[in-house]
C-alpha cells in the first residue's frame, strides 16, 4: 500500500507532518521542495489544488494500491488500515458526501446527476498507480478547465475546490468506483472530545490546526 499526500503552503506542511506522525506507515508528501514542483497559478489555493489533482504523476514507482490522503487528515487508530477492504474489481474508492446537490451551473449539475453523489477527495483508494495516473491526467486537465470559468460575477469561484473537476473527469473515464463508509474520512468533527470518542478511522480537520496537539 502506497500512501501519498500533497502539501503546498506552510499551513499544509504542518498538517502533513501531523498526518505522517499519526499514521504508522510511510506517507510520502509532495511539497514545493520537489524537483517536479512548478508554480501553476498565482493564486495559492488554485496552485495547491492543481498539484493535488496531479498527485499521481509525482509518484515514480508504486507496487500495489495507491491511497491519497489530504494533508489535513490524521488518525488516532494504531493500525488504521487493518480492516480496509474493497472489491477485487474496484479501481477507485472514496467517501461520498451525503445528500442531493443542486448546482447553479449545468456542467456541475450534470456531473452530480451522473454520479448520484458528490465526491469527497480527501481519502481516495486507487487499485494501482496506472489507474491513479490515468485519473489524475484527466482530473488536472478538468481542474484547469474549471479554473478558466471562475468568475465571481457568475457564481463560479475557486471555492468550488477540486472535487467538481474530479467528478467531471470520472464521467469521462468510466472508472470502476466503490463508495466507502464515512469512517474512512470524517470531516464533520471539530470538537476534541468528539474526535477522541469517534469510531471514525480518519479525521479531516479542515483548518483546525490545533484540533489535537
Amino acid at each position: 500500500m502506497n500512501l501519498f499526500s500533497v502539501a503546498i503552503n506552510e499551513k499544509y506542511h504542518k498538517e502533513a507532518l501531523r498526518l505522517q506522525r499519526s499514521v504508522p506507515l510511510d506517507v510520502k508528501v509532495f511539497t514545493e521542495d520537489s524537483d517536479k514542483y512548478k508554480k501553476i497559478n498565482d493564486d495559492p489555493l488554485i496552485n495547491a489544488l492543481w498539484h493535488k489533482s496531479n498527485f499521481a504523476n509525482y509518484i515514480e514507482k508504486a507496487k500495489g494500491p495507491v491511497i491519497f490522503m489530504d494533508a489535513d487528515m490524521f488518525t488516532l487508530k494504531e493500525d488504521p488500515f487493518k480492516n480496509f477492504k474493497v472489491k477485487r474489481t474496484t479501481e477507485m474508492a472514496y467517501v461520498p458526501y451525503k445528500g442531493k446537490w443542486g448546482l447553479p451551473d449545468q456542467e456541475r449539475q450534470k456531473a452530480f446527476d451522473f454520479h448520484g453523489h458528490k465526491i469527497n477527495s480527501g481519502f481516495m483508494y486507487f487499485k494501482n498507480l496506472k489507474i491513479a495516473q490515468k485519473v489524475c491526467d484527466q482530473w488536472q486537465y478538468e481542474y484547469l478547465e474549471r479554473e478558466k470559468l471562475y468568475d465571481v460575477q457568475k457564481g463560479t469561484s475557486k471555492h468550488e475546490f477540486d472535487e467538481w473537476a474530479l467528478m467531471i473527469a470520472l464521467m469521462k473515464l468510466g472508472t470502476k468506483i466503490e463508495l466507502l463508509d464515512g469512517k474512512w474520512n470524517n470531516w464533520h468533527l471539530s470538537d476534541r472530545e468528539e474526535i477522541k470518542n469517534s469510531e471514525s478511522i480518519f479525521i479531516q480537520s479542515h483548518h483546525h490546526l490545533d484540533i489535537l496537539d
Partner: protein
Amino acid sequence: MANPLSTNSKIVVFDSDVNLNDANTNNVKQGATIGDILALSGGGGGGGGSVPLLVADRPVFDASKAGDKVYFNGEEWIYGTSDWLEQLGISGLAGVSAGYPVPYNFTWNPNRVTTIKKSLLTVENLNPASYYGFNLSASDAMIAAETTANITWDFLHYPLGAKIQQITIQAGKYVGPSTNVFFPFAIDAFEGVELLTDLEDIGTGVAFRVNITGSGGGPSAVTCSAAAIDDFFTKLPSTTKTATLNVSDFTGGSAANASIATAKGYTVVQ
C-alpha cells in the same frame, strides 16, 4: 384585582371639579373605548403622536402601509418609506421597498457595520413559545436555541442581520457548564431573509447549514418544513458569490424545491 384594559374598556373624561366617586352623574362629558382610540392610529401617518396598533403577527411587506407604525412583540415597528429605508442603507435590496417593515430603532447601515465573517445565531430565553429574534453571538462562538418551542428565525430583528456571511443553526444542543442539555426546537418560518446579501462559503465552511454533530443524545435533525425552506429560498436575494445552502439536516430538507435557490446562484444540498 381589576381586569386589565381591553379594547372594550371605556375611557371617560370628567370636569375638573367632578366628584370621582360620582362617575354616573351628568358630569361625564365624553367617552370612547380603547379600541376606538387604537383605530385612530390605523389610518396611516405613523409618525407624530398617534398610537401604533398592537399586532399579533410579525409585520410583513405591505406597500400600502408605508410610514405606518405598529407594536409587535413588545417592540415598535415601522413600515419603511423609501426615504426611511434609504437612510438605513437597505433600500437597494431586492424585496425591500416602501412598505418593508423594520423595527423602529433598526439602525443597520452598511457603512457603519463591520462584516461578520462567521457567526452562529442563537435564540434565548424563549417565553412565550413564539419568539421573533435572535442574538448574534461572538464570532465563532457556538450557542444554541434554548427552547422546545416553535420559533421563527428573524434575520432582521437585530441590526447586523444583513452582513452575516455564514449561518450555522445548532440542532438543539446547548453545551452547559458541566453537561449537555438538548432543546428540540422547531423552526416554523424565516423572516428578514431579504437582508442576507452576504452569504458565502468561506474556506470549507458553507454559507448556511444545520449542525447536528453534537455528541450524545442530540436531535438527528431540526424540524423545519419543506414549505418553510422554500419560503426561505424565495426570499433570499440573488447571489454572485459561491454560497452553499445545506438544508439536509432539516426534516423537510429533502422535499424542498432546490431550483428556487439554484436559479438565484446558490448551491443547495438536501
